[in-house]
């Protein structure tokens, strides 16, 4: 009991130390604040439709507006060409970005970690098979593959898009996790567990997984950015889920309806949001990397 408590407090201590290092990092702090801002946007996205149905991002149309209008008291960011409110679309976009980014990243982390651990732990034939497979996926441009698949399977909904993105973004993680697993396998505690009669499954999940988890989480933040970008690009090209409003789709509308030269109030916000949300995840990832990798913050010493 005491031991468990002590261990817990030790973990807590390490967490707090990591947190303070993270918070000291300017890049990490900026990233965190940006992220909180977008989270707030996502939460607020539920509000406008409650005020008036015309603020619904997809179906709400202002009856008095017949073309795209600049910002006004009723529409703080203006409207699109059929009179839908741009602010409410922008807020909803934040929700979609989080949804897509985090679920796709999480799934690709799960695939990558599992495959990496199995390849590293099993070694031999299975290892080289899995890694060749990873190589193959790695040279496929994910956006174009998903496009090709959507041409075969017809219109994709948002969950299929998320699944496809994660299916094509795991090899990078798998490689890193495999390398870590290989080095972990050499450590004495794995041998000890084996001698003590632990099954392979138990060794992998009880002894290897906890050790590779921080690295996997780190990669997850980077995967969030790439998932958001791929989804936005798909939507921008007109292959998004037609039932959702995403920032990429807003850009597609402004582009396809030929408003890009007349309506900067429509062109600028979605692009800024996509760029900044990916920036915020990327910054968090970099800061986390510095916390997790002591080599990056080592102090030079030579006596």
């Amino acid at each position, binding site marked *: 009991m005491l031991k468990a408590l002590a261990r817990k407090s030790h973990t807590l201590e390490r967490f707090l130390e990591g947190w303070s290092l993270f918070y000291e990092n300017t890049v990490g702090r900026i990233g965190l604040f940006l992220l909180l801002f977008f989270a707030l946007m996502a939460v607020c996205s539920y509000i406008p439709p409650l005020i008036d149905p015309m603020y619904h991002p997809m179906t709400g149309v202002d009856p008095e507006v017949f073309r795209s209008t600049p910002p006004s008291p009723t529409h703080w960011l203006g409207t699109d060409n059929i009179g839908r409110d741009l602010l409410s679309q922008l807020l909803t976009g934040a929700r979609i970005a989080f949804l897509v980014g985090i679920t796709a990243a999480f799934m690709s982390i799960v695939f990558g970690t599992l495959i990496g651990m199995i390849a590293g732990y099993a070694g031999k034939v299975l290892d080289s098979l899995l890694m060749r497979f990873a190589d193959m996926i790695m040279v496929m441009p994910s956006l174009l593959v998903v496009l090709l698949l959507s041409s075969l399977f017809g219109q994709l909904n948002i969950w299929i898009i998320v699944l496809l993105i994660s299916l094509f973004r795991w090899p990078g993680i798998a490689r890193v996790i495999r390398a870590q697993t290989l080095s972990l396998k050499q450590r004495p505690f794995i041998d000890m567990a084996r001698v003590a009669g632990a099954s392979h499954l138990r060794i992998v999940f009880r002894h290897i997984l906890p050790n590779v988890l921080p690295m996997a989480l780190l990669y997850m933040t980077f995967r969030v950015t790439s998932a958001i970008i791929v989804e936005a690009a798909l939507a921008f090209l007109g292959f998004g889920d037609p039932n959702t409003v995403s920032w990429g789709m807003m850009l597609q509308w402004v582009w396809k309806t030929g408003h890009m030269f007349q309506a900067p109030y429509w062109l600028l916000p979605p692009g800024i949001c996509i760029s900044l949300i990916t920036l915020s995840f990327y910054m968090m990832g970099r800061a986390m990397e510095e916390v997790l990798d002591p080599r990056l913050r080592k102090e030079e*010493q*030579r*006596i």
Partner: protein
Amino acid sequence: MTLLEVENLSIAYQTRGGVSLAVDAASFSLEKGKSLGIVGESGCGKTTIGMGLLRLLPENGIIQDGKVLFEGQDLLQISEDEMRTIRWKKISMIFQAAMNAWNPVQRVGEQIVEAIRIHYPDYSRDRAVKEVEDLYQLVDIPRNRLFNYPHEYSGGMKQRAIIAMALTCHPDLIIADEPTTALDVIVQDQIIQKIKEIQKELSIAVIFISHDIGMVAEVCHDIMVMYKGKIVEVGKREEVFVTPMHPYTKSLLSSYLTLDGVFDFEDKANETVCQPDTIIDSHICGYIQHCQEADSSCLREAPRWQEITPTHKALCRLCK
């Protein structure tokens, strides 16, 4: 003739926890063509002295005080550009064998030629190559290996090539920092013999930095023992080796002698590696915790230099 005169050299490192002193008021001198060994356990500040002489400390290293008079010129006062002309041409280095002293993507010969041509810009490439070939002969590396890459050399060859590179500009002083650590025993011996031979033949002054007092005693005219940033004993090789005065030197020597038979557990226990972040209390003797001869007066008073012979002295109140 005195070649190098170091006075009161103090070097500190800036760390997260504050400033820690790595070398505390070190003073010593070296005659032309002679060799000096600096001995101590890892972390005692011996490498810091070596790097400090060439002003090659890492970014967080600060030279706080002192003078480094080389041929009468204070190296701590001259500009960085002037310092660059001193480096390698006047004072060169033999690096730790364990270090990756060679740039992995450049051919070894190319790196040596570079050292020559930086200091003798009027040399043609062919002349520089010719000179490197002669040096290779001196350190027994076949000439055809000259333009291989570092990873194609064995550990001993890399080390000999480093010696060759150290000799390129005919320096007056070579600082050899743990030149044999991490090499196997036979190669170690070859390297030591080579350095000794070259030192005699070319009469270059050498500062030999090592943790191995036995090896130092084999090569050097003078020995200087360091402990926790301080010089604790200086003397001629025979004096220090045969009649050590400081208790720390005695323990160093006894752990060396254990190789010949008696293994002394207590002395082994005495060897504690001092951490780099240990802040040195300059008032009382730093060795007091491990000293078997210490008495209560050591706790109250600072250690003083005791002169045993004109050339042999130790920083200990108790030795007479």
